[in-house]
């Protein structure tokens, strides 16, 4: 393997570009100065404890977790059977329907949030939390349809047919034969949908109110008025969470499956 030195240096610079900003954040989270500073003077964990005691952070964190979890679950319940039907059944306009299910990805997140806010919350007086859940459901659904859909397409159809000859009804076949063999796809789409819902800002921007704020929004609001290292500390905590998730995914599926 001949090495092209120029390319290697270039690539290293790029990776440095990607990682250094994050490393800087990590470092600043330990600084003693009341504003963010780099390099840091002194070393302290106080910003981390500030994060854990900041109510708006902890409340919005649990809300983000809840919403991501419920929205992803809903997306799975509706999306897995839909993905199956799209892959296996001869439905009129199959491709159109599939594109329709994937359409939320084309609409800018902010627009989705705005439209939903206007229509659901203002016009129909739904509580904001419901609008939030539905908005995040729209974010999660395309991941399920795409990932689970491709997993099903790669599954040998004859194992379903053979189960019918052995006496399974179509429903039994789905639960006994199809589901056990698409668990990796379901898990991968769960992870992808969950992460993207948790990190999502645009959709949640409009759909927030008193007591109903998602973590990224709450973080953004904080940054507007404060510039202290508790932002860095929270960022580090979030990054840690991401690393843990990536680790779990690697151990169960291999990261290749979600990239």
């Amino acid at each position, binding site marked *: 393997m001949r090495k092209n030195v120029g390319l290697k240096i270039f690539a290293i610079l790029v990776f440095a570009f990607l990682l250094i900003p994050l490393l800087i954040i990590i470092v600043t989270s330990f600084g003693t100065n009341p504003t963010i500073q780099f390099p840091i003077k002194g070393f302290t964990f106080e910003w981390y404890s500030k994060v854990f005691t900041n109510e708006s952070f902890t409340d919005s964190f649990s809300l983000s977790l809840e919403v991501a979890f419920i929205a992803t679950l809903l997306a799975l319940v509706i999306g897995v059977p839909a993905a199956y039907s799209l892959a296996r059944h001869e439905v009129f306009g199959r491709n159109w329907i599939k594109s329709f299910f994937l359409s939320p990805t084309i609409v800018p997140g902010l627009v989705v949030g705005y439209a939903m806010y206007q229509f659901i919350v203002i016009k129909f007086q739904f509580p904001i939390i419901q609008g939030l859940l539905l908005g995040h459901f729209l974010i999660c659904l395309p991941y399920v349809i795409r990932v689970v859909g491709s997993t099903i397409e790669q599954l040998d159809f*004859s*194992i379903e*047919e*053979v189960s019918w*000859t*052995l006496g399974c009804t179509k429903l039994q076949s789905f639960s006994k034969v199809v589901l056990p063999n698409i668990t990796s796809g379901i898990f991968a789409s769960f992870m992808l949908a969950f992460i993207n819902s948790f990190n999502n800002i645009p959709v949640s921007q409009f759909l927030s109110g008193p007591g109903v704020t998602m973590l990224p929004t709450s973080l953004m609001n904080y940054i507007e008025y404060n510039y202290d290292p508790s932002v860095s500390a929270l960022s580090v905590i979030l990054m840690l969470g991401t690393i843990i998730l990536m680790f779990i995914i690697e151990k169960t599926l291999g990261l290749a499956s979600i990239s």
Partner: protein
Amino acid sequence: MSYVELKDIRVSYDNKSNILKDLNLSIEKGELVSLLGPSGCGKTTTLRVIAGLIEPNDGEFLVDNKNLTKVPVHKREFGMVFQSYALFPHLTIKENVAFGLKLRKEKKAAIGKRVEDILAITGLEELGDRYPKQLSGGQRQRVALARALVIEPKLLLLDEPLSNLDAKLRLAMRIEIKRIQSQLGITSVFVTHDQEECFSISDRVAVMNKGVIEQFDTPEEIYKNPKTEFVARFIGFENFFELTLTEDWKYRAVDGTFFESTGKYDQAKRTGTIRPDDIEITASNESSTNNMVAGKIKVRTFLGKSYQYEVETPIGTLLANKADDVIYQVGDMVTLFIPAHKLIIV
């Protein structure tokens, strides 16, 4: 009334062209019948109609005098072996085989015993706790077979089960399948495109072409007396030449030579054919009697047990095989003798 009857089956996906039309087939109990033909001939479609995976547009399907045409797949109780074996990747071999029995709510102990028995019959005793991905192709094939047989099905359906195995395994497995099938006496329908495989194990063969059964006979009968040009070509006949029927059952070729054949044929048939092995070559260049034609050797190829000669004659280019006791050269003039009892008219 045969055990299995397909009556006037028609299958069409777009109502413009038919995949199968007026298909009729009768199978006796305990028989192993093969559907033989090139890809696209409709043999797999026919099998899937029997299985219930395809609903025919017209026609009836009866087993043991019961009309099963509208009965859904999971109620037919037929065992099916797929080309890809379709083993359940998430279950062990034992669980795979027990699958059908568990659905029938059999008792656990009974299931265990029957699974053990069938694994013994198919030579899989040691592999019960393994998973499909740990098994070789031949082993997986046997699991697919065991799984289909253990439910004691009324029919066993096999869709090109040996196509994915290497040549040696194919030979061994087809004998296995025949052995098990005769031992259990189970009526079976076997789909394949391999003529030799089919002929070696079948009680009767249906040769199919473009959705039609061209001949349904024992392998011996098809081999000796193909009824159509397609069947003849499929089973290895070469040398097709035009003939006109004259009085008293003589045929005249385009160069005026007369041919006789010992078989009795429909008046409409006009093409003579013979296997390259059956043509006798001699060196003289006379063609004075019936069933003889002279020609010049154009190409010689070596087949191992014989040489094959491409001979240009007035009735067409003919292929003739001859053992290596006499070897001819390109350019030699020879006489080809076509014995009356080997000449077939299609």
